[in-house]
């Protein structure tokens, strides 16, 4: 990174943090504490229900927590929306960063990229740019599902990872997905086949059996078009996908949908929070790591030379 730019960013970060400290000092902690305490005492005096008094105490504590942390959250938002895009551009001029993501829940559902149910999706920290002449997107994704009912209702995280998308100039003729074949690896081929046949009877995506035994053991391919699936997944593609999972982890899912190739990868949340201006180097190196990872993904999958790439 250019030392002058780094120095400028560092100074701006210091400014953001000093503004944060100033704002924190000005927060009306004392007034809120006094009002809260007065309400709780009055509650006791007039013998209000224990739940109501407890609620008042919890609300006061929550508001104090918010008063203390909201300047920090605001500082992080300012850092991520103003400083981080500059850091990202300095790592690669074609790379763009956005705090929010355009990747929608309905799009994820439409792709059927992940073989799991979810109620809510959180997508942020999005990187976009060009690699090997291909437009790509990369973002942090967290999926949750509400389980149980009544008092047992709870929200469970069902996926935490990243989703890549690579845009091709031509629309694929089919909708094809490659899922990690969990059933087959647990219960064996024949029984897995029965499970899968049953699951597909209600789906528009039908199972595609490919000729690579190792690939078939690890993955399940589903497509709306048997022939196009084989056009997209050549023996070379199968080898590349296996090489990808060996390098980036077994929990990977792939999908060809409309004119995009998607990859979902189990991955820890991308943290670009700047705890302190002195930690700027950590954030820069994290951005460099992410860019290195995106490049490596394109390299391992040899995206530029795939049969579906229309030059």
């Amino acid at each position, binding site marked *: 990174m250019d030392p002058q730019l780094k120095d400028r960013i560092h100074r701006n970060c210091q400014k953001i943090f000093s503004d944060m400290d100033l704002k924190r000092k000005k927060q009306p902690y004392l007034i809120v504490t006094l009002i809260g305490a007065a309400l709780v005492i009055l509650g006791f005096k007039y013998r209000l229900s224990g739940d109501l008094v407890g609620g008042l105490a919890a609300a006061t504590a929550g508001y104090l927590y918010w008063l203390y942390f909201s300047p920090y959250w605001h500082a992080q938002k300012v850092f991520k929306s103003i400083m981080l895009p500059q850091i990202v551009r300095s790592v690669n001029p074609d790379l763009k960063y956005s705090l929010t993501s355009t990747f929608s829940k309905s799009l994820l559902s439409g792709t059927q990229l992940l073989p799991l149910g979810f109620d809510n999706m959180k997508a942020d920290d999005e990187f976009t740019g060009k690699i090997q002449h291909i437009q790509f997107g990369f973002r942090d994704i967290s999926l949750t599902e509400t389980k149980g009912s009544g008092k047992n209702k709870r929200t469970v995280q069902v996926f935490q990872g990243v989703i890549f998308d690579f845009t091709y100039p031509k629309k694929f003729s089919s909708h094809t997905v490659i899922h990690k074949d969990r059933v087959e690896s647990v219960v064996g081929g024949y029984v897995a086949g029965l499970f899968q046949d049953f699951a597909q009877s209600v789906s528009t995506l039908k199972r595609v*059996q*490919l*000729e690579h035994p190792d690939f078939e053991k690890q993955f399940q391919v589903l497509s709306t078009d*048997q*022939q*196009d699936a*084989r*056009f997209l997944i*050549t023996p070379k593609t199968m080898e590349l996908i296996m090489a990808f999972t060996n390098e980036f982890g077994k929990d990977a899912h792939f999908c060809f949908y409309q004119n995009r190739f998607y990859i979902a990868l189990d991955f820890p949340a991308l943290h670009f929070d700047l705890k302190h201006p002195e930690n700027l180097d950590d954030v820069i190196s994290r951005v460099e790591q992410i860019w290195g990872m995106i490049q490596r993904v394109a390299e391992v999958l040899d995206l530029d030379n795939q*049969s579906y790439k*229309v*030059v």
Partner: protein
Amino acid sequence: METFIIGLIAVLVVFGILTYNSLVHKKANVSNAESGIDVQLTKRQDLIIKLVEVAKQYMKFESETLTQIVKLRTQAMQAPSLNERMQTENQLSNELSKLQISFENYPDLKTNTQFIEIQRALHEIEEQLAAARRTFNAAVTAYNVALEAFPSSLMASAIGYQTKPLFVAEEKKREDVDMKKLFNS
């Protein structure tokens, strides 16, 4: 006892219907896959004609190869079965490979926009054709396995279904490419 026999007959009838339908579906998949190959071959034929038309304007010294390609194309279109058609198509592929090598001697042709477009499309069709052949082989394998496995083999022999041959890569294509020979030719 009577109920048991009626139940057994009912199970056998349902099983027979399911097996029959499964065999019919598998046979239909083979036919679909076969027509998939046919569609790609027809697309390739159309492109070959366009390629020859463009190449003719530049390649004055390759008329023999071009004539041979047109002749093989006509033969392929008139072939009575897919297997015979594939044999002619393979010869056609060999002639096209020869032609591809000789394109190197015609730099003007290589820069022709229409020619570049046809080459691209031809390359994609070759990939689609490979996929169509793999689809056909997968469908034939599933069909043949059903015909030979018990108890569907009983139903298959009763309705007169017979195993189908797979597409096998040409011997010539399986050999390693002799680069020395290629460049000295």
